[in-house]
Each structure stands twice: as C-alpha cells, then as structure tokens.
C-alpha cells in the first residue's frame, strides 16, 4: 500500500500581476513529501522554486499573486485555509528558513526574545521563563556554545553560521512536521554548509521531520535528499530519486545541470560544461517546451517541441518522471554519441 504523503501539492499554479504583464511563476507543479524524507527542489534563479515553497505557507504577497491548485498538508487544505488556520500551521507544523541568515533574524531584538516569541505564539499558556528554558535547550541542541551567556545577545553579534543555527533553532522550536529550507546554506562558507546540513539531517532523524530543500547546488542535493524535483521555467521537468537523477538523468536540462557540476569524472577534462543561453522569461513563456531554445537534442522533433508543452511522464525503465517529448532511449543514444 502506498504511504499517504505528509504534504501533497497538486497542479499548483502561481501568477503574479506586474505592470509588465502576468508572470507565470509556477505552472502545474505537483509533488509529494513523506514524513522523514527530504525532497530537493533544484533549479536556476527564477525557475519558480522559491515561489513554490512560499505557496505552501501562503507567504506570497496576496495583492498581486494568484494561486490555484491544491496543497494538502496532513489531509488539510492549506490553500483554502483562512488567516487564523494558516497562522496555526505556520511555524508550528510547517516551518520555513530562508537563504540569508544575516537578514532572517530581526536585528532589533535579542535572539532569545525571538525564539521565545516563536515558541509562545503557539504555546500561549507557557510563561516567558519556561519558554526561555526551552529556547536555551534548543540553542544548545543546534550547537550554540554557551547559550546561557549568549541568549541575550543580538543577531549581529553572531557569525553567519551561528546565525543560521539560531534561525534553525527558531524554526524548529515547535517541532514542526515539515521544514521548508530555502537555500539554507547558499550564503555560508563550504565548511559551515556541511555542518548546517548535518545538523538538519540529525534533527530530521530524531523526530522524523520531512524537509523540502530548495537549492541550486547539486552537491547539496546529493548529500541530503531522497527525492529531487528539477524545475525549469516554472515547471517541474524531472522528478526522480537522487540516485536515478545522478546516474540516469532523463531530461536534457538535467544532463546540462549535471554536466555543470565539477566532479572527479569531468574535472579531468579541465573545463566545466555550461548550458548555453539563459532561462526563459516567466513573463513570455514559449508556446512549446520552455527548454527548447537551449536544448541540444530537439532538432529531430522540432515541430512537436516548439508547439506542445511536454507533460511530466514516467520514463521506463527507470522510476523517474520527465517532461520531454523525446523518448529516453533516443536521448541516451544521442548523449552517448556526444560523449564518444
């Protein structure tokens, strides 16, 4: 029997009205996350990954954003939830952390004040003193040395890595079931990145929390994720387990992404591959496949690729889903030729 996912997103569409026209930031995106698992959402800047994540907590600015589709969390409808209902989910059942730990903490209050605030907003009956003890434990848990001495300091008195730990402590103070991490390590040094990812994994193991990890760093994905969704032009173009994505990518964009990663294999050839061109404007998406202008495999199938948007479909013999008109065997043989 298939497990019921903790979170399922179905046919999510997000549009923003701007003075220049309607931006189709997210188009027909569907995915699911199970408890204890980590889903990576990978893509370039402007691929819609952050907007997708913000939709789960209804954080997109209400005036200009139009969201359609369904988001179910633990069987509850998130998109249809009213203000009060969504507030009770935010921070207590689904927590979110952001890219830049330097700006994610309120500079005008002590870190203790902010963690206690995050706890007490969902535990109104708990006194400040008791909440402070819980905050101290949490700071200790995330590896802040000597938390008793530092809890009354301000964010700017901590280093970047320490701040991200504090952000994580704040986000996880209510033991959420799902953590959405929007590029949590992008702004940090490589050594600190590994520490933060380890910390997230440790905490995940302790309380079987699900994580949605948004990143453009495939190295981070390989290290931490179970499943991956690759986004391009506001759509998911490939959905696979981590192993499948790295061993048998099925979408031309994924080929490109993997080719752009420095690994022991391709560093021998000296140069990193790049994907020529730039991502499509979400203001004017092309009529067919949005990757077509940058795709090296579409010549044989130009008519279909330029007119029909490819649907995400299962690719045998793998378990992956790919949104490409070309059959995988054909792609792989083309790719093989290229390498040879």
């Amino acid at each position, binding site marked *: 029997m298939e497990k019921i996912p903790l979170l399922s997103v179905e046919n999510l569409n997000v549009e923003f009205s701007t003075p220049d026209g309607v931006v189709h930031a997210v188009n027909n995106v569907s995915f699911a996350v199970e408890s204890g698992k980590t889903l990576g959402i990978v893509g370039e800047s402007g691929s819609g990954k952050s907007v997708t994540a913000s939709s789960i*907590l209804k*954080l997109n600015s209400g*005036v*200009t954003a139009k969201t359609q589709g369904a988001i179910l969390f633990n069987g509850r409808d998130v998109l249809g939830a009213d*203000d009060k209902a969504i*507030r*009770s*989910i*935010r*921070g*207590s059942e689904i*927590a*979110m*952390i*952001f*890219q*830049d730990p330097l*700006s*994610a*903490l*309120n*500079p*005008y*209050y002590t870190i203790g004040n902010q963690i206690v*605030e*995050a706890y007490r*907003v*969902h535990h109104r009956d708990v006194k400040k003193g008791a909440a402070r003890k819980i905050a101290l434990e949490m700071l200790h848990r995330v590896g802040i040395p000597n938390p008793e001495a530092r809890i009354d300091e*301000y964010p*700017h008195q901590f280093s970047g890595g320490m701040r991200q730990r504090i*952000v994580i402590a*704040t*986000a996880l103070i209510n033991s959420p079931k799902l953590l959405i991490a929007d590029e949590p390590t992008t702004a940090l040094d490589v050594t600190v990145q590994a520490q933060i990812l380890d910390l997230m994994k440790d905490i995940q193991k302790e309380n079987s929390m699900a994580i949605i990890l948004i990143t453009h760093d495939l190295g981070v994905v390989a290290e931490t994720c179970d499943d991956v969704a690759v986004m391009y032009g506001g759509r998911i173009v490939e959905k696979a387990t981590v192993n499948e994505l790295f061993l048998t990518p099925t979408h031309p964009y994924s080929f490109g992404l993997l080719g752009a990663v420095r690994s022991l294999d391709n560093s021998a050839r000296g140069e990193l591959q790049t994907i020529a061109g730039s991502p499509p404007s979400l203001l004017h998406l092309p009529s067919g496949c949005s990757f077509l202008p940058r795709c090296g495999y579409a010549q044989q199938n130009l008519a279909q690729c330029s007119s029909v948007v490819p649907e995400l479909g299962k690719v045998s013999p793998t378990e992956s889903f790919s949104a490409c008109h070309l059959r995988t065997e054909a792609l792989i043989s083309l790719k093989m030729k290229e390498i040879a």
Partner: protein
Amino acid sequence: MTTFIARRILFALVLLAAVSLFTYLLFALLPTDPAALTCGKNCKPELIAANRVRLGYDKPIYEQYWQFIKGIFAGRTYGSGDIAFTCPAPSLGYSFNQHECVSTLIGKTFPVTAFLSLGAFVLWMLLGVGTGTFAALHRGKWQDRLTSVVTSIGVSLPTFYVGLLVLFSVVIWLQWLPFPHYASPTENFHDFLAAMILPWITLAVLSAASYTRLTRNGVLEAMNEDFVRFGVAKGLKNRTVIRRYVLRAALIPIVTIAGLDFAALLGGAIVTESVFSLPGMGRLAIRSVTDSDLPVLVGTTLVAAVFIVMANTIVDIVYGVLDPRVRVK
C-alpha cells in the same frame, strides 16, 4: 554605552562653543556700528559714545566675545553707578531697541514657539506615520493612490500659502474661529487652543505629507526584509509583525529626521508665526533683522543653534538605543 553618551555630549559642548564664536564674530563683522543703533536718528554723538562704553563695544572683539560668554554663565552688568543695570544669567546681551535683556525677550517668546512646535510635531507624526503605514499596507490600491495624490499636493504647498489659505477659509470665510489671538495656556486654555489650532495644522501639513512618503517607503522596504517574512512564517499575527518587525525597522530613520526637524522648528517657525501673528521666537528674530537689533539677532541665532546641536546629540543617543547594531560597547 555610558562612554558613548559622554563622548557625544562632550562633542556637543565643543560644537556649541564653536557655534557661539562664529555667530558672534559673524554679526560683529557686519558693517554697522551697534552703538549707533542704540538710539534714534537724531542721536547726539556723545550719547552714542557713552552707549558704546556702556555696552562694551569699545573693547577689542575678543574681549567683547569673552564678556558675552561670561554673561551667559554669570550675568552681565552694563554701565556703572546710577545708570547701571543688570541682565542676570544667562545673559545674551541687551536690546536697546526693545529696552530689554535678550534673555528676557527670548524667555517671553520661546514658550509660544515651543507650544507651536510641539503641537505641530505631534500632529504631523501621527498623521504622517499613520497615513504612510496605511498607504503601504494598501500598496497599489486606491487608498495608496489617493494618499500619494494628497501628499504630492501637501509637499508642494508652501507654508505661507497653506497658512493664508487656512486663515482665509476658516476665520474669514467660514468664521468658525476668531482671528487667532495668542493666550497663554495657563491663563486661558480655550483661547490658547483657538489660537494654536490653525498654526498647528499649517505647520503640520507640509511635514505630514513628507513623513507620509518617508513612512510608506520605509514600511514597504521593511516588508521586503527576510526577517519580516520569517516573522510571518513563525505564525505571528499580522498586527504583531507590523508593530514589532516592520514599523520598528521603518521608524528608526524617521525618528532621526524627526528629531532634527523638531529642533529646527524650536528655533522659530518664522513664516507660520508671522502669518498668524504669534509672538514667538521666529517673529522676534524677523523683527531683530528689520530693526538691525544685533544683540537679539545673535541671541536668537545662538538659541536656535543650541537646539539643533542638542537634537543632533539626542538623536545620536536615541539611535543607539533603538538600533542595537549602532550601540558602541
């Protein structure tokens, strides 16, 4: 923090000393003979000479300045024998035009200016911050656009125009209020309010408009901050996020500007006081210019400068209190 405050205050004192020196020198360099201004056109040369000695204008300039500074702390006695008279500390000189010590003149007019500034300040801060926040929260909707139109008009209207407009419409045309006649609030609070309400509005209009814009932009900028999004993601109520996250960040620069604007007003709201015939420091200063009443001119300039320097110091200290990142350990 204490050393920071001590250093700021010390710096302010040095600055004040420099300001007093320059103000005094500047007016001493004017090509008018202050002694000749002490009596009318048909004055005898002997009287002018006597007044010159009495007021100390016969002494070299550095000694005059020293007497002036000494007078601020110890008071000053002019002349000797029967015709001697004293301006007690803090003495800023003696006005022959008005036959009063300058400090007495300022003491009489300052409360008017202070009440005027304080009322206008409270009014424009409430209006400006309130409307600015309101507009930002309704960004792009008709409320925001209406606010932007109204503030554009507000910032482009000169004070004397608003003053005359208000005076004409409310007092002359609608006759809701009598022509403003200043009364001290302790004597007759009703008359005080009746005299002050129009000047308050006049002064507040322009500033409220620009503070609305400042607040709106500050709030919008703050709403884009990651920590505000993080606050929302914590599950905080909108009201809490706006109060503790957005306004806290948006108001810090506004507090800084507000302190300086308020201090500048305390030095005399020249136009508004003139339009509404309020006996404040602005009118005193204007009168001293037209009458070439040098001691009063030096006195009012110096007092205005003191307010600016004081406000600067206070703003610096308050900034450190409001923003922990600026605090010096």
